[in-house]
């Protein structure tokens, strides 16, 4: 019940603020331009529409998630609301989950927008003689992978916002983490655990969406995303309590 109240409030506040509708529109515009370019290049090739749609959406997602999540606790710190939050009879985890889910809902809004614009593009703007393969299954898999990634980015952004003093620095830190942390972490894990020369792509999660849409689902990556998200939510709750214990709300 408290979680729903927080989610409703946070999402409404997010939409009204500069971190809401405007970034969604800008990201949608950018992702659609990318999609059109992908479609133009895909002519005569064996690319599928869900894969191109997923890839175009995946590049906009970290930016949007970083913007949405950068508001998180930083805003409360800036307005002096943190001390009031400490005195409110709500568990730290509820605050964290409320903020993460509000940012995640914004990402869902963006994906819904991408779906609508893709439909419009295919229905009215694409020449009739162009043939491109598409399946509902591919779209569903791509959307699932994107939603999972959005959750991860939102968790990272919210976690960073607990430490940061301004929205701008939170945005930059979480964007850098979103874009490069997976590559760095995966490369480090590979280096430490295997002796092979396994090379990770620069944007492994974006590539994962492309593969998912083509039917190549890597369960390990999905489980990894989910696990890291849960760990980050738990860690954020601990950090919130630690802030309360140290009274570093300013």
């Amino acid at each position: 019940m408290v979680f729903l109240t927080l989610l409703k409030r946070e999402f409404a506040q997010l939409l009204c603020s500069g971190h809401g509708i405007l970034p969604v529109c800008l990201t949608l515009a950018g992702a659609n331009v990318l999609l059109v370019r992908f479609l133009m290049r895909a002519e005569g090739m064996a690319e599928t529409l869900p894969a191109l749609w997923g890839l175009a959406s995946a590049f906009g997602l970290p930016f949007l998630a970083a913007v949405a999540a950068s508001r998180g606790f930083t805003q409360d710190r800036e307005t002096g609301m943190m001390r009031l939050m400490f005195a409110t009879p709500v568990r730290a985890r509820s605050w964290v989950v409320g903020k993460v889910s509000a940012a995640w809902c914004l990402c869902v809004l963006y994906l819904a927008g991408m779906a609508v614009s893709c439909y419009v593009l295919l229905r009215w703007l694409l020449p009739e003689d162009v043939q491109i393969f598409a399946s509902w299954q591919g779209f569903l898999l791509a959307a699932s992978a994107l939603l999972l990634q959005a959750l991860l980015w939102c968790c990272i952004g919210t976690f960073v916002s607990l430490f940061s003093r301004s929205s701008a620095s939170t945005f930059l830190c979480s964007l850098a983490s979103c874009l490069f942390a997976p590559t760095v972490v995966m490369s480090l894990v590979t280096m430490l655990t295997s002796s092979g020369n396994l090379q990770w792509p620069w944007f492994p999660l974006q590539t994962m969406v492309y593969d998912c849409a083509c039917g190549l689902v890597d369960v390990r990556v999905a489980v990894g995303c989910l696990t890291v998200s849960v760990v980050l939510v738990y860690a954020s709750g601990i950090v919130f309590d630690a802030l309360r214990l140290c009274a570093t709300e300013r």
Partner: protein
Amino acid sequence: MLRVDKATFLYAPERGVEAASLIVDPGEVIGVIGGNGAGKSTLLGLISAALVPQSGSVTLSLSEMGGRTKRFSSSFGIGYRRQVGYLTESAPVYGELSVRRYLSFRARLHGVGVFRLRHRLSDAMERCGLASVWKAPIASLSLGLQRRVALAEALLAVPAVLVLDDPFAGIDATQRAAMTEIIREVAVRSHVFISGHDPLLLQACCTRFVLMERGRVVADALDVKEAMMRLQPEVVQKEARS
């Protein structure tokens, strides 16, 4: 009865509150006075459970907001926090929300049920004189009215402990008188703590004063004259001379 027993919270050595002890009965209004950096806000933070004491405890009847232990968990002190109304120094509010929506949101967080919500909201808004502006966005209200919204929020939970950190800062005499009236009404069944720099401003609603210096409670149960003598001796001497 509310008991603060050797509660300590230090941000750094000699910064914060050290071994503060108080016993307060329901119906008492305590004025916590002292200079800048004396530890008033920290003491009120401890009483409101926004801060967790590093040692010592704050106890209200059976709900304890005790010192931290190795078993500290997130739900620690929630029972106590449900009984506290807190107006912070900066009185932050969500400016883009209307008065009613903001109070409704805060009431839900305090665990006020759906059936009681309407009654609690109208009661708090009526008490604080906000009934005529309930639809207005908080940001469009004057500073005094915004403070009243923050006060209404503190009253929503029908608190057993009402903590007001410098409530009269930046508001005019009329608003101050109205606020004093509200505090007196609430004080009948609650433990009320008000901080401030000037005992004369607080005397209309306080039953006794607690003086703080360098993080310690140096005097308890002072009346307004004694408080003035301890806090602003030059002013009292000047008045006596004149």
